[in-house]
């Protein structure tokens, strides 16, 4: 209990003091995750909507694969990315290993099936009159797609939130692909693991609490957005 209390007071101290190492790790976690989720959403939302609104052979299998992909172990994704980005890998010439961009790509792979799987479910469960009404009013494919996303906004925002939460807290990709390099690829999750491994439990807990704070702020923001949209 004392450990938790120390962690909490340490978290407050770190937050208020604005220690550069913590601030840079928090900022890096934020931008890497936001970019990865945004990129995954740009591709994943149309794919989810397309899978929900079309019936073709293999559709169910694809949905099943995306749903299974939602449980991808981050260490596995990290290892796959490592193999791809290493010097002898197909993406070796891009020198993505041990860079934040490498982590972005890894987290994109992690977020993509989550966004496809959850947005597919949200759009699939829409009232069938949504698609019929849009079509009979003359909406083309892009306007119809925008209408589906808009009508399924709560489910879609939840998909984005889930993807964000998974990416911001993941350790495997950031550690294997990023390498936990100080001031370069260290994120809040890798910093937490690092501090804990060297016996700085209170500091580790403090960083974990910071991570939780970020998740809370994003969840609150998304909750507020979905409420605002309804009004």
């Amino acid at each position, binding site marked *: 209990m004392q450990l938790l209390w120390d962690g909490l007071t340490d978290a407050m101290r770190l937050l208020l003091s604005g220690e550069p190492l913590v601030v840079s790790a928090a900022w890096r976690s934020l931008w890497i995750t936001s970019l990865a989720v945004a990129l995954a959403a740009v591709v994943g939302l149309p794919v989810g909507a397309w899978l929900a609104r079309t019936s073709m052979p293999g559709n169910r299998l694809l949905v099943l694969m995306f749903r299974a992909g939602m449980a991808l172990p981050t260490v596995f994704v990290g290892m796959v990315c490592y193999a791809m980005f290493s010097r002898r890998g197909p993406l070796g010439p891009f020198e993505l290993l041990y860079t934040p961009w490498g982590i972005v790509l890894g987290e994109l792979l992690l977020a993509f099936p989550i966004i496809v799987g959850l947005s597919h479910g949200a759009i699939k469960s829409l*009232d069938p*009159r*949504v698609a*019929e*009404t*849009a*079509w*009979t*009013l*003359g*909406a*083309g494919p892009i*306007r119809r797609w925008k*209408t589906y996303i*808009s*009508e399924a*906004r709560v489910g879609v925002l939840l998909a984005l939130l889930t993807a964000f939460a998974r990416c911001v807290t993941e350790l495997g990709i950031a550690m294997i692909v990023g390498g936990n390099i100080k001031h370069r690829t260290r994120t809040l999750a890798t910093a937490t693991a690092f501090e804990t491994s060297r016996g700085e439990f209170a500091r580790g807990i403090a960083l974990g609490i910071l991570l939780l704070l970020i998740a809370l702020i994003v969840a609150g923001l998304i909750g507020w957005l979905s409420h605002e*949209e*309804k*009004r």
Partner: protein
Amino acid sequence: MITISQLDVHREGNSICSVESLSIPSAGRIGVLGANGSGKTTLLRVMAGLTDEFSGRCQVETDHLQRTFVHQHPFLFRGTVLSNICYGLRCRHRNKRAATDQAMHWLKRLDIEHLANRTTYKLSGGEIRRVALARALAFEPQLLLLDEPLAELDPQATETVCAILCELKNTTLVIASPTPLPEGLVQNDYRL
């Protein structure tokens, strides 16, 4: 405008709508009457192009952009009444100003001008029907398919809606109803 012959719609082995022969001229107004479950909605859905799972022939000489169907329980998109009425107009690339003007014109005609900025989930059943009708009328379709449009309307609203529908000179109108339609609203009835 619409020619139907030997139309049969089957679902799970049962015939749910059967029409031997039906012809609707351009700008004609016809009522499709029948008891609950007789296939009125199904017939309108076939005409609207919402289903192609039927046998026989259904020829509609109107592009799908020029026809529209209003559900028995209309669905309004989230947002305001005005944004809903502008939807079909925006689909036809009208600019925002022109779409708003046209939408306001139809809101006034249906006596629901005061609802323009109201969010759709705060509307009553009768208001939803009138908004859905205004949305369909706003882009002046050549073929208007209405499924029980007078249900839930009060006598005054019924009178307003009937008057507007009677004034449509260039629109082919097909109205499904389980009960006889008010005098003069349609030129002919087709019984299912």
